[in-house]
């Protein structure tokens, strides 16, 4: 009897360990779900609006791959920026986004007919509960676009499809940019909350989609000729964060391991 009891206890311990592994596994293998842009709380007095603020050293960075946007403009598939590093932080009041990408030339002015500006943009849905078409939304599913260009201007735009951007009367987005050692680093920030018409609010209990675009002025990139990401998201929702299939797969794997262990133990006991 005592042997059987010991075996039973052993089995329980093994099962518990396996369950623990199954639960902890996803966290250990991937630090966060795909396409999440984690938003870290920081203190306002650490000056997150500054691209060089040390507070950004503590904020996780996501390397976001970029591809040429589908567009009808000439040479639309000829773009040069292949990825952008994205970090996000928040204080009690504001949401911050820090974008950083490699560009060999800082194109800060468009003072001649063939000169174009370096630029970057962030796109978020107006209605954060529905994911809009990635190409600047649609007439029924509008997006906000924060457009920074290297002459120092930042525009806050409303769009309902390609070619439809319209500037807000007063931009709520503030930007600080720095070019150093072949990289642009741009911090955009905006109050989390907004009750203005057609302006995205981040004071929500659901995940908020976000997408990115970068233009290299010296390559004559402008308009639809740009490098763009797919949709990412800020994890403002209650979780589980990440695609549900990931948890399901881990649960199935865990159960399978437990099942095999139980069968094995039973077999050993019968011998």
């Amino acid at each position, binding site marked *: 009897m005592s042997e059987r009891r010991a075996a039973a206890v052993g089995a329980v311990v093994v099962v518990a360990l396996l369950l623990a592994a199954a639960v902890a596994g996803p966290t250990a293998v991937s630090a966060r779900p795909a396409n999440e842009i984690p938003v870290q709380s920081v203190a306002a007095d650490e000056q997150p609006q500054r691209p060089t603020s040390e507070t950004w050293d503590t904020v996780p960075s996501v390397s976001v791959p970029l591809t040429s946007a589908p567009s009808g*403009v000439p040479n639309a598939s000829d773009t040069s920026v292949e990825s952008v590093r994205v970090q996000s932080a928040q204080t009690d009041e504001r949401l911050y986004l820090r974008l950083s990408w490699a560009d060999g030339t800082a194109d800060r002015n468009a003072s001649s*007919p063939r000169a174009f500006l370096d630029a970057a943009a962030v796109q978020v849905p107006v209605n954060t509960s529905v994911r809009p078409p990635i190409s600047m939304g649609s007439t029924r599913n509008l997006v906000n676009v924060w457009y920074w260009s290297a002459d120092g201007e930042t525009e806050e735009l409303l769009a309902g499809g390609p070619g439809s951007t319209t500037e807000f009367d007063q931009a709520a987005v503030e930007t600080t940019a720095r070019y150093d050692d072949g990289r642009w680093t741009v911090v955009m920030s905006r109050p989390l909350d907004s009750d203005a018409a057609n302006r995205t609010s981040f004071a929500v209990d659901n995940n908020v989609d976000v997408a990115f675009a970068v233009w290299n002025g010296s390559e004559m990139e402008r*308009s639809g000729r740009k490098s763009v990401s797919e949709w990412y998201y800020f994890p403002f929702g209650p979780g589980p964060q990440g695609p549900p299939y990931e948890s399901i797969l881990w649960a199935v794997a865990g159960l399978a391991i437990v099942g095999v262990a139980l069968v094995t133990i039973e077999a050993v006991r019968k011998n």
Partner: protein
Amino acid sequence: MSTDDGPAAQADGDGVDLADGVDHQVAMVMDLNKCIGCQTCTVACKSLWTEGGGRDYMYWNNVETKPGKGYPRDWEDSGGGWKDAEHTERKPGDIPEQADYGDAWSFNHEEVMYNGGDQPLRPDSDPEWGPNWDEDQGAGEYPNSYYFYLPRICNHCTHPSCVEACPRKAIYKREEDGIVLIDQERCRGYRYCVEGCPYKKVYYNATQKTSEKCIFCYPRIEGEGPDGETFAPACAEDCPPQLRLVGFLDDEQGPIHKLVEEYEVALPLHPEYQTQPNVYYIPPFAPPQHSEDGETVDVDRIPRNYLEELFGERVHDALDTIEKERDKVNRGGDSELLDMLTDTNPARKYRLEVFDDE
């Protein structure tokens, strides 16, 4: 379609090809035989529309010497326009370099005029190109060298490739008269229109960060001036030899319709660009060539094949028609065509109020 007896009758009154959604189409005919290259049109336009504010280098109206590289330099090789008459596929185009336009030069007026300096008046910079840089150079060899002047504005095309090129629909063809305009509120300075126009008549304003172009002086033709009167565009009204006719292509009683559609002597520049311009030119005549000892020989001074390059193969019929009509007048006959080309009455040369009652 012209005959010795004058224009062929139009079977019905609606033979003019207007752009979709356009009620009427403004048009201009320029008689190149009258242009003296004085640039008064250029200055009239510049002082009215393109002084300062990032527009200094722009000439919405320019006059260039042909043969020549023009303004901007080599614009005829800069692409743009349509691949064919179907108007479904555009040709790729380039944005000219600033150097191809030339800069707005500043001069040493102060030293020469006020400080008693004895140096010649000259630009402060050392320019290598600018509008009208190759003035009067032309082509050919003495005694058979040749050139003529070509005034150019936006052609306010029936199939404008600049309009099609804009991803924001910021550039459009106005419904009431087909004038092509850029909505300065919509424009974001992408310059697809600049590269898309085969005539390079859209200009980027680096100060405003938008593109700008000839507006056919629409406030003047709308009578928006202080006295409420209608005026033709400044380039036309201020022209000393009065070489321009202004009106509507679909005004069948007007000289433009007759010259373009009936006599077919007024031709678009570079019809192969397929944009169907609404500025038309009476091609230039020049005295025949001379032999080495100064005798007149029966050879065209301006080669026909060069005129064909500019105005297409219809230039041959156009020149033949004008020549026939001139012979007729020389024999003491009447010619409606030459009457129109020599008319000095502004009321008949500028017909801008014919559709006002609609």
